[in-house]
């Protein structure tokens, strides 16, 4: 099965590039989507089917947490693929352009799958760097001056960051010389034998490197630029899938600290940068003029919340898993809807968009409801995860931190909701037609994402709960 998810999309992508026919592009895109969904379901139901050579099995594996991240990525990937149909139509892409877009998306997805499934630290690094390289051309897809600038910053900052992470990996291999292996299982088993000094210094480097990809403050500089300049479906993929997969890399290293009983060090780094991200977002949220950048800053905020949750341990991990799922889905929905708005208004400025509810009621409502989902209004699951994080603060004896946490969240919520309401209500600007209806593909993915969130938020199905519990129990 692992062979299928790693190789089939690549082969389909290459054929798309060669054949350059519209029908084949769609076959390869949706073929891959269906394959990913089937594999996720098969692994959920413990169906095993090995066809790959043994030596490859050693390097790739579905573990509980990997399966959870894979499932979240698959949901985002499926919704982005459906929305892409609208994107093709709205931008009048030729079959050749479509095939480039689809091949890049498929390569990008495979790179992220590699990050999720890797069992070797250095191999995980290889795939994280590969995500940078495969997504760079997607960010530059619209070939504008500003997207070129964003791409350059993205590729360069992330490459240097990831290079530093490799320094960390080498330093870790100095510290774990007696183990002489960088497979995660070996590192976990012998975590106590790793020299603490080298472990800490290597973590500092890896934290900076992977943290750059996650977009945590203060190394988030590329994130608002890249997210705002990429085509909207790509922004959704970046925010909903890429950040998570880099986070998984960091979590796997964090597990070494937990196994070595020295998680105080990594926890304090997570807590500090988590709060810093909230502060940075709250400072910028009130003065943003571009709604896609607003969504990008919200991603920084949510990664900060995830970091804070990780630092709190036990209950925090459970909250992190719920939050991660909810953030990916609601942020994808927001980014996809922002694509509709961009198509209707041809401007990314908040002040250029007025009366969205009258102009296109469906887009308007999706925009509002997705925003409510991301700020955590009950019954959306982000409410649950934030509540659990506050409880975890209390249980871990750092209850006083609830006050700054809450205040920062309120500022961010205020900034974001006021921008969304300003865009949604009121009268459309002069000369703009009302009651437009776009293609079905422009609404359906967001509706499905929001419905999934509601189902999980109102009455979590037992299977989902088991999946989350299994993923959270990775840290023991």
């Amino acid at each position, binding site marked *: 099965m692992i062979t299928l998810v790693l190789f089939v999309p690549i082969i389909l992508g290459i054929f798309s590039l060669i054949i350059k026919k519209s029908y084949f592009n769609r076959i390869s895109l949706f073929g891959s989507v269906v394959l990913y969904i089937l594999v996720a379901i098969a692994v959920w139901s413990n169906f095993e089917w090995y066809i790959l050579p043994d030596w490859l099995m050693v390097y790739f594996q579905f573990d509980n947490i990997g399966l959870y991240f894979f499932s979240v990525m698959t949901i985002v990937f499926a919704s982005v693929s459906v929305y892409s149909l609208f994107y093709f139509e709205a931008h009048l892409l030729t079959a050749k352009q479509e095939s480039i877009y689809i091949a890049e998306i498929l390569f990008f997805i495979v790179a992220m799958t590699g990050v999720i499934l890797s069992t070797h630290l*250095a191999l995980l690094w290889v*795939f994280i760097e590969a995500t940078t390289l495969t997504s*760079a051309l997607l960010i530059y897809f619209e070939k504008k001056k500003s997207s070129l600038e964003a791409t350059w910053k993205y*590729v*360069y900052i992330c490459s240097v960051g990831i290079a530093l992470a490799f320094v960390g990996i080498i330093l870790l291999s100095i510290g774990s010389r007696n183990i002489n292996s960088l497979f995660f299982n070996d590192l976990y088993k012998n975590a106590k034998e790793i020299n603490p000094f080298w472990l800490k210094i290597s973590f500092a480097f890896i934290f900076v490197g992977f943290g750059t990809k996650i977009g945590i403050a203060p190394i988030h500089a590329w994130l608002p630029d890249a997210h705002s300049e990429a085509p909207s479906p790509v922004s959704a993929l970046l925010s909903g899938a890429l950040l998570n997969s880099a986070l998984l890399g960091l979590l796997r290293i964090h597990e070494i600290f937990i196994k070595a009983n020295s998680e105080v060090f990594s926890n304090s780094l997570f807590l500090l940068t988590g709060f810093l991200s909230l502060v940075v977002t709250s400072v910028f949220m009130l003065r943003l003029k571009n709604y896609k950048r607003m969504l990008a800053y919200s991603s920084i905020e949510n990664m900060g919340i995830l970091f804070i949750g990780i630092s709190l341990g036990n209950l925090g991990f459970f909250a992190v898993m719920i939050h991660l799922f909810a953030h990916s889905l609601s942020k994808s929905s927001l980014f996809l809807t922002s694509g509709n708005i961009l198509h209707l208004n041809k401007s990314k400025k908040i002040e250029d968009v007025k009366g969205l509810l009258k102009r296109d009621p469906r887009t308007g409502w999706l925009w509002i409801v997705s925003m409510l989902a991301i700020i955590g209004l009950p019954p959306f699951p982000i409410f649950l995860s934030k509540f659990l994080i506050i409880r975890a603060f209390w249980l871990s004896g750092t209850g006083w931190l609830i006050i700054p946490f809450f205040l920062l969240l309120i500022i961010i919520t205020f900034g974001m909701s006021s921008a969304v309401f300003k865009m949604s209500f009121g009268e459309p600007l002069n000369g703009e037609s009302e009651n437009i209806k776009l293609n079905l593909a422009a609404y359906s993915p967001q509706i499905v994402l929001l419905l999934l969130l509601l189902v999980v938020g109102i009455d979590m199905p037992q299977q989902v709960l088991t999946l989350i519990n299994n993923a959270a129990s990775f840290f023991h």
Partner: protein
Amino acid sequence: MSDILIILLGTTILYIFAASRIEAYVKALALQGTILFLLIVVDIKDISWINFAFLILETLIIKGIIIPYFLLSVIRKNEIGREVEPYISQFYSVLIASLIFMFGFVAAFWSAKTNAGIKPLYFGVSIILIIASLFLIINRKRIITHILCYMILENGIFLLSLSVANEMPILVNVGVLLDLFVGIYLFVIFFNKIQEMYDGNHIDTLTELKD
């Protein structure tokens, strides 16, 4: 023998700090690639032949010949001015370089005492390469020098991995090399685009996106 080569590698960094022409950077890069190749031939024993062949390919062919040639042709084609244009003047740069060297040697002495199984001189010089390249990245205005300094950073990391005796699986080695190669290729593509779209190739021209 290997000590002499390592010292030579360190001096290439001093040369880069003192040089004011971009082509000198590329030549220093090619030299670094060749020195790394010689180091492997002289110093590495007890590894599988496939890994050995791979390291030769990576250092001599890729780092020593292909990438420098590629970058040199880009520089000549785009008729980039010769000067590297630093933010801080050359004199202070060299002063800072000597501080970085001091730190590197302190690290080398320290690592010799820790008994962590690393080769001290390799360790010290690789740290010099890494810190120096990061300093050069922030201190140069031109985008092309950023690409060159990224290569120096990669060379430093390569040397650091040589200072540890552990052998990486071949799959990982292939992946690392592929990433490096595609990375440089993409850098150059985007560099050419920036050259076309913006008048000039200074990092200061990229200021459209901000909050």
